[in-house]
């Protein structure tokens, strides 16, 4: 897919500024709504309240109730009606309040949203973005800390991306909204308040591309979303012990952009894949399969994975043990090196 063209900002916006992920997402929504009157935002509490995380703060006030819809409390309804609105020429940006609440909408997403373009032989385009705050680490109750991205990456017809930092949040959401395909847009909620420097005049990477965040020679780490920060911290810690990690932020989970991973593994000979999501039948499994296929003769050790366990997400007092952390990442690197 061609890189979406994003208008250059006007001079008043061009100064580099410090933003959080929430701010980046908010700015992206605002920019798209200003550019295209067909972009609408819909979800539970996204209007007057501005979303439970305040990602849509101020949008209803500025764009009105017909472009920022406080919807009835029904996720299947949000996605199902977004499909009809898209058929009518709108570009809905849906918010699912928490990861664990996406499943009432699962039917509409996999049965209709994912398939209509193929079924209609391209006559129906569904440029719908479904924003999903995902992942744990915030001490929440059940259904508020899950990582359901693999279900959607497993479904043909959907694109799945995950941002990991404020600058990507700003660019990737705009690119997702401008994409003519349905995009599941996963946001690392525990990193929502982390800060970054946004240069609005910079040229963003294409949406469906991974990025080497840190170059290294000892081993390669492939990860995405909230685990990017964890892996970068592991790389910093590892450097003190002479372990020089290359860290790749996958960004796009479907399609996967693995060429930078292959290139890296051919140099390092070792790969550790890190995700909060459980490992069985997952994105991390897919990466391991493809890397052993493409880099078989370069591998010095099997591809190792550090993931959430294949259990229901535990009560929050146990989430620090459940979630991959710096130690578990470095332990996997050690095991790879010792192979």
């Amino acid at each position: 897919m061609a890189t979406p063209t994003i208008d250059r900002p006007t001079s008043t916006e061009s100064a580099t500024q410090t933003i959080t992920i929430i701010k980046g997402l908010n700015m992206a929504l605002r920019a798209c709504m200003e550019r295209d009157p067909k972009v609408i935002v819909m979800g539970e509490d996204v209007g007057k309240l501005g979303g439970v995380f305040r990602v849509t703060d101020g949008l209803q006030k500025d764009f009105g109730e017909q472009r920022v819809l406080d919807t009835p409390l029904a996720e299947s309804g949000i996605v199902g009606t977004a499909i009809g609105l898209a058929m009518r020429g709108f570009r809905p940006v849906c918010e699912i309040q928490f990861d664990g609440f996406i499943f009432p909408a699962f039917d509409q997403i996999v049965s209709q949203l994912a398939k209509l373009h193929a079924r209609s032989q391209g006559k129906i385009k569904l440029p719908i973005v479904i924003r999903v705050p995902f992942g744990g680490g915030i001490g929440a109750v059940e259904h508020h800390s899950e990582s359901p991205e693999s279900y959607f990456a497993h479904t043909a017809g959907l694109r799945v991306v995950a941002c990991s930092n404020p600058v990507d949040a700003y660019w990737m959401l705009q690119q997702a909204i401008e994409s003519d395909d349905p995009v599941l847009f996963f946001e690392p909620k525990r990193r929502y308040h982390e800060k970054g420097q946004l240069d609005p005049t910079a040229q963003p990477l294409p949406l469906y591309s991974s990025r080497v965040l840190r170059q290294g020679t000892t081993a390669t780490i492939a990860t995405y979303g909230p685990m990017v920060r964890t892996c970068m911290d592991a790389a910093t810690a590892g450097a003190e012990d002479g372990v020089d990690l290359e860290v790749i932020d996958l960004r796009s989970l479907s399609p996967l952009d693995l060429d930078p991973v292959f290139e890296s593994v051919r140099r390092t000979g070792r790969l550790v894949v890190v995700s909060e999501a459980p490992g069985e039948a997952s994105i991390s499994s897919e990466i391991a399969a493809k890397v052993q296929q493409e880099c078989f003769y370069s591998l010095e050790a099997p591809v190792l994975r550090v993931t959430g366990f294949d259990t229901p997400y535990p009560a929050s007092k146990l989430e620090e043990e459940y979630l991959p952390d710096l130690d578990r990442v470095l332990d996997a690197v050690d095991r790879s090196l010792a192979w």
Partner: protein
Amino acid sequence: MSSPERWTQPQPAGTPAATAARPTSEQVIAGLRATSEGGPELVQLLTPEGERVHHPEFDVDFSDEELRGLYRDMVLVRRADREANALQRQGQLGLWVPLLGQEAAQIGAGRALRPEDMAFPGYREHGVAWCRGISPKDIMGMWRGTDHGSWDPVERRFHLYTIVIGNQCLNATGYAMGQRFEGKVGDDNGEATMVFFGDGATSQGDVHEAFVWASVYDAPLVFFCQNNQWAISEPTERQTRLPLYQRARGYGFPGIRVDGNDVLASLAVSRWALEECRHGNGPVLIEAFTYRMDAHTTSDDATRYRHSDELEAWKLKDPIERVRVHLSRNGIADHDWFDAVQAEADELAAELREHVYNLPDPPTERMFDHVYAEANPVLAAQRDEFLSYMSTFAGGEH
């Protein structure tokens, strides 16, 4: 009162339904909420001023002991609720979901249930839990993050809290179908089920499907909808154009609106609905018209989306105060008795606080327990590998 037809709403004369114009927003609001009294259909037995009023369909007498018991229940669950809220503010709980303002609806419904009946809560039903013999202490783990629910739902006849909105309505329907299939319905000794959900949940597909299933299988199920006027930031008119209790008619069963801040009416209407179900005349929908006096949860700031004067207006209809006035004015309870109840409430709160302080963190291996009923070697290997890894950290500093 036993016939469902009794509760079907006649079409107003001269209203051509097929061509009826969309109601104005004023009419919608009048029907839904700004009726400070809940509308003419509202069943009320005790006014906000504490006056006992007569209702032709619910001509129920309550003993003095029963009245005092209902008051005590409400005071105790409110005190526990406020303590839990404070514990969250002090960092002892990760989250709390306040029931403040909904004590009468929950105690009324909860006290109408018999031990053999079943109840399916949402996540705010701390008052119903109390009536099922579940101590506020047993609820704390879920909000502190030490468990996902600590009681035996089958033995206690009270399901675990359900957080995904409306899911439990279908589960309750299936349970009630089972009661009927097992021949437990049909006479005074019949069983029934009650499911709790809110105004927001009525938009969920699961709730509509539950209405259909319960209806076509004649399930002995009372749908107890606490309309507390707010689904986080969204008012009831975001979910419906007509009063919620009237939805039942479209599914073919009776619906009734009760003053959810009136514990006597909530109890009487719930008893009636459960009786209907026991005798095979279910399902029934009850809309308990009440008000969420606190925020949605401790993570929510209600001042961002609603005016304080609305809360002030509802404070005048407080569910506990009206009973207090009624008890003292009629000499059913004196100062000493009220003081004793307050002392008991304070003691409950102190015990709750102590319990939360001492709630142990679960052991690491807990998360691998009970994922499957039968052995799973893949998960067992994952657990063993992780526990072995954890044991490499000296002194458990990990």
